[in-house]
């Protein structure tokens, strides 16, 4: 897998004395095999995702008018600081899978693939905060690479609130500090929120600020993803075309 994309400095809203190590580098990918996959390297959170597009999914659950979206989330045992003993099957992984599924069911044009099943497998290789966001971004790239039609890019980012300022894209240390964290998945063109999830206490008055920070960061992610996809398409067409 080839990684190559110019790093972009993502504006952390908080530019205090110690600048936050914030830069998002999604890597472009050249699929070696025919299976569409994407590898996303976010600030210390790496996740890889693969889309399996099986036209004949489980017949019992097939829907007559739309495609079924199935998402599986698993994190590698070496992904966190301490070795995790149960990488999948526990409640948190199930929940992540459900949330991813919800996000993509809203974004993929499922009416165009009736009676089929779209599988999205996401594996977190290194987790340093913002795992949900990294998973969503990686899955977007994989779905795009598979050629499955979507309404728009789904870009996600996490945000938090510390000392009166909203922070975008929290790292593990910032998440573990216990402050409020917000994960937002956005369709950038329309500004619609596909998934919104928040933890820990945040006063209502600050909600708008944090939402705005997350939305802005998601749009920045979108510009990077857009550029990467176009570059990849250009390269692929050069190889295939002529």
């Amino acid at each position, binding site marked *: 897998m080839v990684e190559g994309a110019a790093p972009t400095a993502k504006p952390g809203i908080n530019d205090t004395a110690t600048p936050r190590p914030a830069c998002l580098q999604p890597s472009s990918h050249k699929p070696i095999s025919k299976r569409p996959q994407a590898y996303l390297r976010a600030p210390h959170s790496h996740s890889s995702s693969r889309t399996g597009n099986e036209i004949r999914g489980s017949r019992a659950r097939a829907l007559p008018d739309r495609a079924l979206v199935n998402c599986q989330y698993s994190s590698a045992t070496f992904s966190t600081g*301490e070795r995790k003993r149960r990488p999948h099957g526990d*409640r*948190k992984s*199930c*929940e992540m899978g*459900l*949330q991813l599924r*919800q*996000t993509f*069911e*809203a974004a993929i044009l499922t009416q165009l693939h009736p009676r089929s099943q779209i599988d999205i497998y996401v594996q977190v290789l290194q987790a340093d905060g913002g795992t949900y966001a990294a998973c969503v971004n990686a899955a977007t790239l994989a779905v795009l690479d598979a050629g499955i039609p979507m309404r728009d890019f789904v870009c996600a980012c996490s945000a938090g609130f510390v000392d009166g300022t909203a922070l975008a894209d929290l790292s593990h240390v910032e998440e573990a500090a*216990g402050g*409020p964290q*917000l994960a937002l998945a956005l*369709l950038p063109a*329309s*500004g*619609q*929120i*596909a*998934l*919104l*999830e*928040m*933890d*820990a*206490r*945040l*006063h*209502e*008055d600050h*909600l*708008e600020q944090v*939402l*705005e920070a997350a*939305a802005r960061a998601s749009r920045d992610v979108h510009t990077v993803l857009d550029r990467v996809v176009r570059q990849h398409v250009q390269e692929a067409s050069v190889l295939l075309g002529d």
Partner: protein
Amino acid sequence: MKETPMSNCERRFLLRAIEEKKRLDGRQTYDYRNIKISFGTDYGCCIVELGKTRVLGQVSCELVSPKLNRATEGILFFNLELSQMAAPAFEPGRQSDLLVKLNRLLERCLRNSKCIDTESLCVVAGEKVWQIRVDLHLLNHDGNIIDAASIAAIVALCHFRRPDVSVQGDEVTLYTLEERDPVPLSIHHMPICVSFAFFQQGTYLLVDPSEREERVMDGLLVIAMNKHREICTIQSSGGIMLLKDQVLRCSKIAGVKVVEITELIQKALENDQKVRKEGGKFGFAESMANQRITAFKMEKAPIDTSDVEEKAEEIISEAEPPSEVVSKPVLWTPGTAQIGEGIENSWGHLEDSEKEDEDEGGSDEAVILDGVKMDPGVEVSNIGSQDAPIVLSDSEEEEMIILEPDKNPKKIRTQTVSAAQVRAASKKPVKRRRKKRAAN
């Protein structure tokens, strides 16, 4: 068993009603159903009823060794179970998605928001801490499980008393309930979940959806807040697309609702406290009023009937006129009359009681069936022209002997229902005809 699918008519009806800002139970868009909180005899046991949705919450505690990375904090464990009695669709193997979602939401709402001071649950750092376990059981599902469950959890936690512990040097003494009064948990704040259901791609929203409304909704947004207007959790589910101002508006509504519900909870807790102190009776048995006539009553809902007459006239004028029915009562004996012949027996021939007629009766009956089917309304007048009307034969009835003063009493072999015994009289001419044929 699988969930019964909702019919299209019902779905359309509900959506249309929601568009006109009407709900089936007469509530307004932002109204909650009635919340009723009752406590059990033990501390930490409560039942919350949100309309017809019932959740039972029970808190228990145990001394355990703490987690390795959090040696000075107690452990909180939440478990929500969807009991099979809550809805026919809840079966042991089938519920996993919903269960995971609800459990995770509750955990995040109550644990991550740090509503309970876990440091105070520590007895001996690194060795013994309290593990508080909250078990919630859904007893009846009528929509909005998450709100009811969150209320039940927080009420049960507020109500709970744990045994007192004292540490002297190396010695830890755990007092029983008789030795020392149990101690309440230290609760910082009470997070309560408020659910918003979205319809028609986010155009309409309802607070506290009932089960029917949940079936037709596009998606759900759950906001957990406490009365200090701090948001503890936000979770959007169901694949709806939200806009930022919708979320902000919902959070404002949630703030108002949470304040009301928190007041209710405080009042309920105070009442229970008072009753226990005064030595009165408490518990679930007491909270159910005796000597009360329970009736299923719905509030009257005003319906607009101003244009009913016009509509009715339209329908009547466009409809076909009903078919003519001529009723000719036939008096068999004083006290026994017959009007009409009844419809034919659509069960087919249950029992052939007349063995002799079996061969010929079959063809006769076949002809008769067609004839009778053509004009169901004019059977009486056709008695003479047709061969025989169909007689209901009920094999369980005993044989009936009809004594008629003006006719020869003949043993009628067909077993007829008492209401139709007069038909035996009409069968006689048939028999005679058949026998004539047999003779010929």
